[in-house]
């Protein structure tokens, strides 16, 4: 196993960790906004690590560029999706989570 493969393995492991963190966040956070916040950022970071690992293994520059393009599109898509979902939830009066329900303030 050469250095490039080793680097790829490390990046893939990091990606797997971040994807796992995103899923845990989706299941464990208390409301839609916090779930959104966990998932959008962390999953795209995981995807970035996976893409970077695959770029290292790419056979040609065009292939590497295409992988980077896919990641860019996924980033733009995720930003749009997260805004749309959070905005529609807020418009439909989904209450943000608070530590003390109906507390002072």
């Amino acid at each position, binding site marked *: 196993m050469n250095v490039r493969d080793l680097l790829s393995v490390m990046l893939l492991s990091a990606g797997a960790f971040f994807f796992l963190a995103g899923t845990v966040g989706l*299941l464990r956070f208390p409301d839609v906004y916090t779930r959104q916040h966990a998932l959008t950022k962390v999953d*795209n970071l995981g995807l970035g690590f*996976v893409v970077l690992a695959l770029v290292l293994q790419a056979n040609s520059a065009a292939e590497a560029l*295409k992988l980077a393009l896919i990641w860019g599109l996924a980033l733009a898509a995720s930003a749009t999706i997260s805004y749309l979902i959070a905005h529609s939830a807020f418009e439909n009066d989904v209450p943000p989570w608070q530590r003390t329900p109906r507390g002072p303030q």
Partner: protein
Amino acid sequence: MERLYLALAAFLLLNIAVGLIRILRGPTAADRMVAAQLFGTTGVAVLLLLAQAQAMPALRDVALVFAALAVLATVAFVKRVASRADEGESP
């Protein structure tokens, strides 16, 4: 390396399966849509890994389409929810 790619793809698939729990529980429609977003991102990663592991470059194009369609699905969802909300209110 191929084995590692496939193992990671299987792991990501497991992530998606666990994400189904959120769709089951809800409680709001937006929560379920967030789970759909997980499907989008993770699905792209799975397809990229499979493309590399099985030497099928066409799967990268599938991943591109996946990312694009995820946005369309969300826009459709938001439109539906918005139109439903409009029906209840007087303009």
